C-alpha cells in the first residue's frame, strides 16, 4: 500500500548524465546523447519502492537557473513554483567547478537536495578524485557517487531517497558581503511570498531574473540595487556571482584532488578539435561526414531493403483472387504499407548513424564549425543542432529550439527546421533514385540533403531581414569531450526511433492508405485505381497545377495531397495506386523522366512539413508562425520544382 508520494526533480548541467540517471531510477528508456540539450521538456517517471511512490521529474539540463531561455524557465518554474519534495542535482565529476556552481544555486532554494557525483569513472580516468566523504562532512548531506550509464551507485542513491525526509539543509552556502546579506534577509522577511528563499531573494536583486510583479517590491528593489552597487562599487550581479564562484573554488580546493597530469587525455579531444574545427578542414570534414552517412545508409541498407522487397512481392503473389478483401490486402496493405516498410533497414541505419554522431560529441562541433556561416546568414550557430536533428525527425528537432536563449533565434530555427530532410522523406528519395539514378544514388540523395540545408538557411535569412532586424545573439556553447560512441546505445536509440516509424506505418500510414484504397475502389463498378475512380477524379482535378513542374499524372497529385499527413504516405500512395514495388518501378519509370523525378523529389522535400510538425511549430512558437511556415513551404516547394524542371529542360535534360 502506498503511504506517501514524493516528487523528486532531477536537475543538472546539460550533458551531466542526468537522463541516464533518470532512466536508471525509473527504468525508462529516454534518449541520451553527448550534446547539450537532450532533455528539452520535463519528463516524468513513477516508481513504487516499499510504501513510497516516487515521481521523478527530469527537468531540462541548465547551467544556471533563470528566466533567460525557455529550458531554464521550465527548470526554474518547476523548482520554485511547484516546489518538489526533493532535488537530485547530477554533477559531472570531471567538470566539478561548473557543475557545482549549479548546485550552489539549487542549495540556496531551501529544498531537500541530493547531490550526485556522476561519471566518477571518467573523472578518475582523467586523474580527478572527488572526496565525497569530505563533501558530505562539509555540507552535512550525503553526496552519492554514481556511474549512471552502468547503473553503479544507484542503490546508494535509493537509500538516500527513501530517507529524504530526514535530510538537513546544506550546512554551508555562499556568504555574500554583509550589506548584501542584510538585504537578502530583509527581502525574505518583508516579501516572503515572492522571496521565500535566498535563491529567490538574490534572483530579484541581481538584475531582475525573477521579475517582481508587485509595484511596491519593484520600487524597493530598484532603490536597494542602486544603493548596494554604489556602496560595493561594482555591479551587483557580478559581486553575487563572484562570491558564488569563490565558494565553489574553496570547496573544490578541499574536496577535489588532481592526481596526475590530465594533459594526455585532454590533449586527445583538443587534438581532434584542432582538426575538425580547423578553418580550412572543418567544413570539408563535415561534408565528408554527411556524405559518408548517406553512403552507408545505401551501402549497408540496400541489400536488406532488397531482401524485404522480395519478401513483400512474394507475399503479394500468394494473395490470389478477386474479392474486395483480397484486393485490399494485395493493393492496400501489401503494396501500400509494404512500399513504405521496404525502407525500414535504410531508416534504421540513418537513425543509428545519427545516434553515433550524437554520442561521439561531434554534433556540437558541427554547430561550432557552422557558426560563422550561420552567423553570416542571420542564424545562431547553435541552431545547427536542431537542424541536424531534423535529419532524423523534424518533430524533436523543432522542440530542440528551446535550447536557444533568444526568442528570435528560436522562431527562425523552428521555421528553418522543416526544410531538413527527415527520415520520412528518405523513402521517397530511395524509391526515385532506385529507378532513375541507379549509378549516383548516394550522391543524388546527399545533394537533396544539402539542398534542404541551403533552403533552410536561405528562408531564415530572408525571414530575419523581414521580421527581426536585431543582430544574432553570439554563440556560447559547451563542447563535451569526445568519447567512443557506444554501439549498444546507438542501436537502442535507433531501435526506439525505428519502432516509432513502424508504429506510424502500422497506424497512421495504414489508415491513410486505407482511405486511398477505398477512394480508388469507388464508385462501385469503376476500374480499381483508374482515372474514373473517386481518387482518380480528385487527382485529375489537381494534376494540371503540376504540369509546369513536369509531373502531371493524377497519381502524383494524389500522393502529394496525402503526403501532407506524413511524407511516407507519398510512397504508400504510389504503392496502392500502382500495385506493389515491382509494378511501381515500371509505372513510375514510364510516368516520370529523370528530370521530373528530380523536381518531384525537390517538391517532396520542400512543400509543407507534415501535420505533426506543423502542430509542434504551432505549440512552440505560435499559430501565426505555423501558418506562415505552411504558406512559405508550399509556395517555395512549387516554385523550386518548376524551376528545376524548366531550367533542366532548357539545358536539354528533359
Amino acid at each position, binding site marked *: 500500500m502506498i503511504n506517501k508520494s514524493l516528487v523528486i526533480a532531477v536537475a543538472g548541467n546539460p550533458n551531466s548524465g542526468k537522463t541516464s540517471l533518470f532512466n536508471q531510477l525509473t527504468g525508462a528508456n529516454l534518449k541520451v546523447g553527448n550534446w547539450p540539450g537532450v532533455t528539452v521538456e520535463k519528463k516524468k517517471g513513477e516508481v513504487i519502492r516499499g510504501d513510497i511512490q516516487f515521481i521523478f521529474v527530469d527537468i531540462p539540463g541548465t*547551467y*544556471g537557473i*533563470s528566466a*533567460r531561455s525557455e529550458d531554464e524557465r521550465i527548470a526554474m518554474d518547476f523548482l520554485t513554483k511547484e516546489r518538489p519534495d526533493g532535488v537530485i542535482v547530477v554533477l*559531472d565529476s*570531471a*567538470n566539478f*567547478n*561548473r557543475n557545482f*556552481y*549549479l548546485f550552489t544555486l539549487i542549495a540556496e532554494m531551501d529544498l531537500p537536495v541530493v547531490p550526485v557525483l556522476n561519471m566518477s569513472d571518467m573523472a578518475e580516468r*582523467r586523474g*580527478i578524485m572527488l572526496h565525497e566523504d569530505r563533501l558530505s562532512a562539509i555540507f552535512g548531506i550525503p553526496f552519492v557517487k554514481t556511474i549512471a550509464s552502468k547503473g553503479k551507485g544507484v542503490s546508494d542513491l535509493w537509500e538516500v531517497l527513501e530517507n529524504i525526509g530526514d535530510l538537513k539543509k546544506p550546512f554551508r552556502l555562499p556568504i555574500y558581503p554583509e550589506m548584501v546579506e542584510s538585504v537578502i534577509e530583509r527581502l525574505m522577511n518583508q516579501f516572503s511570498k515572492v522571496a521565500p528563499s535566498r535563491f529567490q531573494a538574490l534572483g530579484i536583486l541581481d*538584475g531582475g531574473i525573477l521579475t517582481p510583479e508587485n509595484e511596491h517590491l519593484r520600487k524597493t528593489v530598484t532603490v536597494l540595487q542602486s544603493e548596494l552597487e554604489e556602496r560595493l562599487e561594482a*555591479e551587483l*550581479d*557580478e559581486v553575487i*556571482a*563572484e562570491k558564488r*564562484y569563490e565558494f565553489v573554488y574553496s570547496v573544490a580546493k578541499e574536496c577535489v584532488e588532481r592526481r596526475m597530469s*590530465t594533459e594526455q587525455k*585532454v590533449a586527445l*579531444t*583538443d587534438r581532434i*578539435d*584542432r582538426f575538425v*574545427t*580547423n*578553418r580550412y578542414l572543418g567544413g570539408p570534414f563535415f561534408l565528408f561526414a554527411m556524405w559518408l552517412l548517406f553512403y552507408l545508409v545505401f551501402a549497408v541498407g540496400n541489400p536488406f531493403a532488397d531482401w524485404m522487397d522480395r519478401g513483400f512481392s512474394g507475399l503479394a503473389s500468394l494473395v490470389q483472387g478477386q474479392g474486395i478483401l483480397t484486393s485490399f490486402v494485395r493493393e492496400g496493405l501489401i503494396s501500400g504499407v509494404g512500399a513504405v516498410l521496404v525502407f525500414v533497414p535504410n531508416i534504421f541505419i540513418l537513425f543509428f548513424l545519427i545516434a553515433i554522431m550524437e554520442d561521439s560529441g561531434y554534433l*556540437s562541433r558541427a554547430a*561550432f564549425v557552422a*557558426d*560563422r556561416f550561420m*552567423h553570416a546568414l542571420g542564424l545562431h*550557430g547553435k541552431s545547427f543542432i536542431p537542424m541536424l536533428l531534423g535529419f532524423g525527425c523534424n518533430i524533436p528537432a523543432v522542440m530542440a529550439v528551446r535550447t536557444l*536563449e533568444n526568442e528570435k533565434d528560436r522562431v527562425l530555427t523552428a521555421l528553418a527546421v522543416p526544410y531538413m530532410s527527415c527520415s520520412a522523406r528518405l523513402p521517397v528519395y530511395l524509391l526515385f533514385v532506385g529507378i532513375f539514378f541507379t549509378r549516383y544514388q548516394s550522391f543524388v540523395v546527399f545533394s537533396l540533403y544539402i539542398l534542404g540545408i541551403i533552403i533552410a538557411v536561405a528562408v531564415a535569412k530572408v525571414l530575419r531581414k523581414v521580421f527581426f532586424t536585431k*543582430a*544574432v*545573439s*553570439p*554563440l*556560447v*556553447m*559547451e*563542447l*563535451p*569531450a569526445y568519447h567512443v560512441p557506444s554501439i549498444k546505445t546507438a542501436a537502442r536509440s535507433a531501435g526506439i526511433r525505428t519502432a516509432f516509424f513502424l508504429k506510424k506505418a502500422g497506424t497512421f500510414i495504414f489508415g491513410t492508405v486505407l482511405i486511398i484504397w477505398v477512394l480508388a475502389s469507388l464508385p462501385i463498378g469503376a476500374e480499381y485505381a483508374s482515372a474514373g475512380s473517386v481518387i482518380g477524379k480528385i487527382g485529375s482535378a489537381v494534376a494540371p497545377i503540376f504540369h509546369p513542374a513536369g509531373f502531371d499524372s493524377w497519381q502524383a497529385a494524389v500522393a502529394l495531397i496525402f503526403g501532407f499527413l506524413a511524407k511516407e504516405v507519398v510512397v504508400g500512395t504510389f504503392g496502392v495506386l500502382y500495385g506493389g514495388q515491382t509494378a511501381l518501378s515500371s509505372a513510375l519509370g514510364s510516368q516520370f523522366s529523370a528530370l521530373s523525378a528530380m523536381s518531384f523529389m525537390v517538391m517532396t522535400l520542400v512543400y509543407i512539413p507534415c501535420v505533426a510538425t506543423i502542430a509542434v511549430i504551432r505549440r512552440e512558437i505560435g499559430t501565426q508562425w505555423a501558418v506562415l511556415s505552411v504558406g512559405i513551404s508550399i509556395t517555395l516547394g512549387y516554385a523550386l520544382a518548376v524551376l528545376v524542371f524548366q531550367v533542366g529542360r532548357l539545358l536539354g535534360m528533359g
Partner: protein
Amino acid sequence: MVPLAFVEPGSFVEVIDFRCGRNCGCRLREMGIVKGCRYLVSAGIKEGPFILTDGDNRIGLGAGMAVKVMVRDVTRD
C-alpha cells in the same frame, strides 16, 4: 588587455572582463568562464570561433562573443 578575437589559438589567456550586457556576462559565468581565471585557447580560427578550455570544460565562443571577452595573453607566464 585584448579581445579574445585577437589571440592566436594555442595561447593561454586570463579572462579580464566581459564587454557585454548583464545577461551575457551571467551566461558566461554559469558556463564556467570566470574573470581572473586562466584558459587554454585549445582550438579556433583567428577572429573566432574559439574554444576556451579549462580541464574538461570546453566552451565554444562564436566570433561575435570573441570580441566581447577581454583577455590577457599569459602564454609566457
